[in-house]
């Protein structure tokens, strides 16, 4: 099969075959990252703009390294230094960037739908690096890649995702991705953090973490944003940790060989007890490592994939 998407806006519109194709492509790139000279000429002459309207260390660095290892020219624009502070609209900002002929814009933005918005209005490719509380496709793909690495296959697994479901783009992309690959997805959180109709995306809903992790193959904990504490969603991080934090005792309810994941950055002692964060079951750094390979695959495929080598 060949797969040459113009944009990567979300997982929702990808098929299982397309997802597997991306993961297989990432597999072939992974080895480059461990070489002495970590660079191939694949995207030489291509320009990638990382347009980040929200703070990000991990995702932005990961995309930047991915681009550089493929020999693309990567440029980073962050909101604090951008023209947003001067009142320019997103469309105008994007059109100005496009006038400089980038091949790919990788965007993170606080507004859900902003990457779809951009893709409709620009000629270059757009990769969604997280739009509001909508999707974060590269995260879901690197999560699937990591699960596949540790479990061999995803079909038939039970994956539990716990935390602030309402405000998580990671959850939405992961539900789509894991369902398409044949896993059973459970989500868990306090009722204030579970949005209505989430089950329609194809998951089971739990309000009790112990029940949700029982016999799971994989437990993915989401970062709890401390600013939500004391607002209307949770009374305190202390109480949150008590009922929805993953500690060794709760983890024992999962399968013996269950893996623990987290999109980072982790809050020790809140959603993850330190003993779990440092325990043998966690694969959090594998996720980060795999993120580079997955993003290399996305950049490569969006830029034209196999066609590149034929040119």
């Amino acid at each position: 099969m060949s797969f040459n998407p113009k944009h990567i806006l979300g997982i929702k519109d990808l098929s299982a075959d397309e997802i597997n194709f991306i993961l297989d492509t990432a597999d072939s790139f992974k080895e480059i990252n461990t070489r002495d000279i970590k660079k191939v000429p694949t995207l030489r002459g291509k320009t990638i703009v990382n347009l980040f309207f929200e703070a990000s260390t991990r995702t932005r660095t990961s995309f930047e390294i991915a681009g550089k290892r493929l020999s693309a020219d990567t440029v980073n624009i962050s909101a604090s230094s951008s023209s947003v502070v001067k009142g320019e609209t997103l469309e105008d900002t994007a059109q100005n960037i496009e006038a400089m002929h980038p091949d790919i814009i990788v965007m993170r933005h606080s507004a859900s739908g902003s990457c779809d918005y951009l893709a409709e209005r620009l000629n270059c490719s757009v990769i969604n690096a997280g739009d509001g509380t909508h999707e974060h496709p590269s995260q879901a793909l690197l999560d699937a890649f990591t699960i596949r690495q540790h479990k061999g296959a995803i079909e038939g697994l039970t994956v539990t995702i716990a935390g602030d479901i309402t405000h998580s783009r990671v959850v939405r992309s992961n539900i789509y991705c894991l369902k398409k690959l044949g896993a059973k997805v459970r989500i868990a959180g306090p009722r204030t953090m579970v949005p209505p109709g989430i089950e329609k995306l194809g998951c089971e809903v739990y309000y009790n973490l112990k029940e949700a992790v029982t016999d799971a193959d994989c437990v993915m904990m989401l970062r709890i944003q401390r600013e939500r504490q004391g607002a209307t969603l949770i009374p305190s991080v202390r109480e949150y940790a008590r009922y929805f934090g993953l500690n060794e005792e709760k983890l024992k309810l999962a399968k013996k060989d269950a893996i623990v994941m987290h999109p980072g950055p982790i809050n020790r002692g809140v959603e993850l007890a330190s003993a779990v964060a440092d325990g043998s079951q966690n694969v959090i750094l594998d996720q980060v490592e795999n993120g580079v390979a997955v993003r290399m695959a996305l950049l490569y495929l969006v830029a034209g994939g196999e066609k590149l080598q034929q040119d």
Partner: protein
Amino acid sequence: MKILVKSGRVIDPANKIDEKLDILIVDGKIAELAANIDAGDCEVINAAGLLVTPGLVDIHVHLRDPGQEYKEDIISGTRAAAAGGVTSIACMPNTSPVNDNLAVTKYIISKAREQGSANVFPIGCVTKGMKGEILSEMGELQEGGCVGFSDDGLPIKDGEMMRRALEYAATFDAPIFTHAEDLSLVAGGAMNEGSVSTELGLKGIPWVAEDAATAREIMLAEFTGGRLHVCHVSTKGSVELVRQAKARGVRVTCEATPHHFMLTDEAVRGYNTNAKMNPPLRSQVDVDAVRAGLADGTIDAIATDHAPHHRDEKNVEFAIAMNGIIGLETLLPLSLKLVGEKVLSLTQAIALTTCRPADILGIDRGTLSVGAVADIVLINPNKEWTVKAEELQSKSKNSPWIGATMKGLAVKTLLAGKVVHSRD
């Protein structure tokens, strides 16, 4: 000056008329309705094959004038009305400055009279500056021409304030138009809360934000004996609350918009900012309830909440796009669609857009009674046409129906006997 509207099917729900008649207009007023009038030497408008009804009355319009003329003004807004077969509109007071004083009221009325293509009945503010703190001078505003009072879009939070507003307005027998919404429950939401908002990752506005506020307003109307008009009901619960209140004898009326009986929150998919409004597009259950409310009489009027916004205010990320859509030029076909779908009889649909909304305002429009001002629309109910942005009279083009096919067209609109719109 005599005009004869000949051979149309005249529908005048207020007078229980539905038959083929001629209408004779003399000096801008209806002089006679009869079969085969021989008026001698006069202008004749052939209405054969057309419906002839009172000009439509839209009691919820934002004209944006004064202050936001880049979106709409009294001239363009009333032209849009005429093009849609609407001859009377009530305009909301959230202009800049707001309509909380006689100067603004008089400006609107005189500009509409001199340059407008429809009758404009201003709605004044309930509170000064729409701040919810001090009552506006409702008596004087009413003398100046205001037909009701509203802090539309900025619902009155304070219970005591709302109580006094209903009481004070009742002194002058004026209705309070409420945008019933508990803003603390809206909490920054951008669309209806439900599975679609969850999927799109947009913050939801739950139905209870509308129901809870509607319930409070109804209780206060019941307590004070004041006249309450609930704007744009959009939920199953608020329709039911009004139904029950009417059964108890509370002085409450309500309206529904075409978008709330035609579209659900599914229309938001693709982050379509022309599907962003407040109250938001709801679920199918709510759409069905609004339709049932129109059919059984619970809902008194179809009103558009015509809310013009500039392209730049809609061509942005969904979360920061302005709320609202234009509606004057699509009111008629969308209302007639309910007849086609057997939700309403033709008479009901005409009543909901003519005499019943006029009754809410207490204005002498919306009928074809002998002696009434000759505000008349000639409708081709079978004419299919496509909504094209460049053909809309409104300055703004923020409609979810751009490109859609409509059935039913106002082919001629008469304002006090004068043709203000004509299209084949």
